[in-house]
């Protein structure tokens, strides 16, 4: 079975054509934007953009399904726990109390709490597609080459791109080792106690580490034989110089970032948007 999770997927779309460097900068700008605000309008704006970009990058639901399941579980748990432990958080933040209905005792559903929790939910939701875009549309070699052009040592960049590239391989090794250990009776399911499961994972990791070390020896020999490290610099076959689209994309992200800061400072007078006063 081909495991494509978290591995670069080669397509020709606007997003794929952008330089890895651009995507990193935009990712950082937009996630910081979302982190620094509790204004649902701003967050919704970023959310729409990131979902739209996922669409542009032709990322299919099937590709990211396993990951989305984990995210959904996390978000739902988070949503319930927030309400269980701090049902009045919204009221404290916004300073008003508009009750919708009462469940029992302290558990009162208020408009404020609903807004607060929805905002939080959307914060996570808007960041995740950005991360997915970065992982699935960035060619590790091209990303490494642009970091190198920015002044990072080429050895660091090469190691980085090799690590990203070997990720699917190691994952494949892990799967086959895990299956063969399960065939001997190792139980990896939730039926086992946590401690036993941890111990069991170790018996998969040991062979994994050894087979990965073998891989490293082989690849480093192969690289030496082809002249790696011969001179102080190297060129990159897959380097893409930044073009107009890269600059425009980075510029737009920067505007969103600055605009969000301005909204917080001059319109909301803080990180929260308060429609209740």
């Amino acid at each position, binding site marked *: 079975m081909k495991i494509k999770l978290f591995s670069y997927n080669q397509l020709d779309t606007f997003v794929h054509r952008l330089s890895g460097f651009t995507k990193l900068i935009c990712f950082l700008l937009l996630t910081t934007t979302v982190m620094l605000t509790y204004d649902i309008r701003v967050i919704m704006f970023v959310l729409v953009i990131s979902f739209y970009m996922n669409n542009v990058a032709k990322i299919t639901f099937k590709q990211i399904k396993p990951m989305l399941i984990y995210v959904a579980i996390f978000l739902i748990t988070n949503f319930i726990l927030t309400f269980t432990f701090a049902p009045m958080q919204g009221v404290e933040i916004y300073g008003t109390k508009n009750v919708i209905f009462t469940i029992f005792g302290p558990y009162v559903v208020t408009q404020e709490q609903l807004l607060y929790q929805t905002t939080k939910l959307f914060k996570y939701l808007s960041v995740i597609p950005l991360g997915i875009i970065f992982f699935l549309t960035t060619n590790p070699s091209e990303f490494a080459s642009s970091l190198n052009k920015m002044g990072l040592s080429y050895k660091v960049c090469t190691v980085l791109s090799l690590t990203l590239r070997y990720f699917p391989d190691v994952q494949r090794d892990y799967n086959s080792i895990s299956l063969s250990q399960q065939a001997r009776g190792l139980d990896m399911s939730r039926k086992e106690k946590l401690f036993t499961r941890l111990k069991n994972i170790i018996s998969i990791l*040991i062979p994994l580490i050894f087979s990965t070390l073998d891989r490293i020896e082989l690849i480093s020999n192969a690289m030496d034989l082809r*002249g790696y490290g011969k001179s102080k610099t190297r060129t990159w076959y897959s380097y893409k110089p930044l073009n107009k689209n890269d600059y425009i994309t980075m510029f737009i992200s920067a505007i969103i970032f600055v605009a969000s800061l301005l909204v917080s400072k001059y319109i909301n007078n803080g990180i929260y948007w308060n429609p209740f006063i």
Partner: protein
Amino acid sequence: MKKPVIEFKNFSFKYHSQADYTLHDINLKIYKGEKILIIGPSGSGKSTLGNCINGLIPNSYTGDIKGDLIIVDKNTKNSSIFDISKEVGTVLQDSDGQFVGLSVGEDIAFALENDNVLQEEMKKRVFTISKLVNMEELIENNPYELSGGQKQRVSLAGVMVEDASILLFDEPLANLDPKTGKVAIELIDDIHKEDTTIIIIEHRLEDVLHKDIDRIVLVDNGRIIIDDVPEVVLSTDLLIQYGIREPLYVSACRYADIDIKSSMHPENIEKFNMENNESKLHDWFSKHNVRLKPNENETLLKIENLSFSYDGVRKILEDVNVDIKKGEMLALVGKNGAGKSTLAKLIVGFEKPDSGDIILNGESLLDLTIKETAEHVGIVLQNPNQMISKNLIFDEIAYGLRIRNIDEEEIEKRVSNVMEVCGLSPFKKWPISALSYGQKKRVTIASILVLNPKILILDEPTAGQDYKHYSEIMEFLKTLNEKGQTIILITHDMHLMLEYTYRAVVLSDGKKIADKPSYEVLSDDEIIDKANLKRTSLYDLAVKSKIDEPLHFIESFINYERSNINEN
């Protein structure tokens, strides 16, 4: 007189990590434009010899050097691996492991990147080279998604792009099926031009000899045993003596008491001239004409109308039916992607079929968990390093029992028993790291056998092994089989099929296309082509010497060889 491009002069080498010298007093001259085969069993020093030529010794593997090695007028003592890599391009054994780039083009370009060639120039040169190996249309593809043969073309292009005048191939056939291996040998022959020197390190002699070789250098124990033209080397008995398998047609002639002379050109079946010895072969055949007996026991495992697909669209297996008899040793063959590994995964319960059934002793295995299935069917992976997780042999074998909370006394008894069967008793207290590859393989087999599975499945048990280790592993499996163990071997080793498994099941594109005796499979051109196999040269020999029943001839040869091994 031509000048040598590579010259070893009284050259010896000792790894720092080892007490003894690996190479002793090597004197070898290789001339410009020659095509050389360096052959020898595992541990003979042939790979070390290769590593000296490409500069990994002493650059990556340090050690003591005595004597001189001169490559293109430069003494390697005074040159770095980078100087050497300009002259010598190396294609390593495992092409999967040596890809640096994410696309074919990027991988080919790696040497140029390190040489600071500008991007535009680089793209041009990569394109030119990729055309030479017929890969220009796949230049954007991920090297991992290519077939074995294409992968090797990419590795080769990545080396050729540097314009090295010497090309070194380290076991180029190790991971290839017979047909792809044949194409690889033809490709090497195609790129062999006047001024390129080619050195092939291999132990699969018959496969390399598919195209002409100038000289064979036989190495054992770090010394050169013989260095001569192929017809002379093949006319001696040195190959057998040093554990190299001769071409099968040569073995057959020797059994028939035909004296192999260099004038007969034994290096290639097409050139082979029997020099009126055909009658001897006919005599031998009439004396040893035996039919092998199929296994007629009751059915142990029944695979019924099995279909499977990962994505619901493309069928990996389609309506496969196989009956496996009790005590049988069966080969499951087919090219990469034909569905053999998937079938094995279904039998051991790693995957569940879309339709059909797997019935063991009348009961379906489909409702069992992986753990429960393991008590009926065990699988041994190709790479023992992927299975071993303990330091001591005993603990490793006992592992499956300990998980099942069986009491220590019983464990002790069962493990000792299995170690006895697998010939591991002398190593009881040894750490696994001290074992050889073949011994590790036995440990992994033992660790599955200890669970008493009724069927043992082995994935490519002999891949990459030389004749000695191959025989060791296979003879061990044969003794297990003779004690009643049912064994399924997933393989594309034709010798293995011929010699050890009476019956072969051939898969192609998920369908069963043949289920008959191995020697018949290996003589059937249509099946051979679909399964990426090669016709056995025994068949050609039989036809060449006008034997009427080539299939029976092959059958008799196998029988004769088996009883011979048993006598020794």
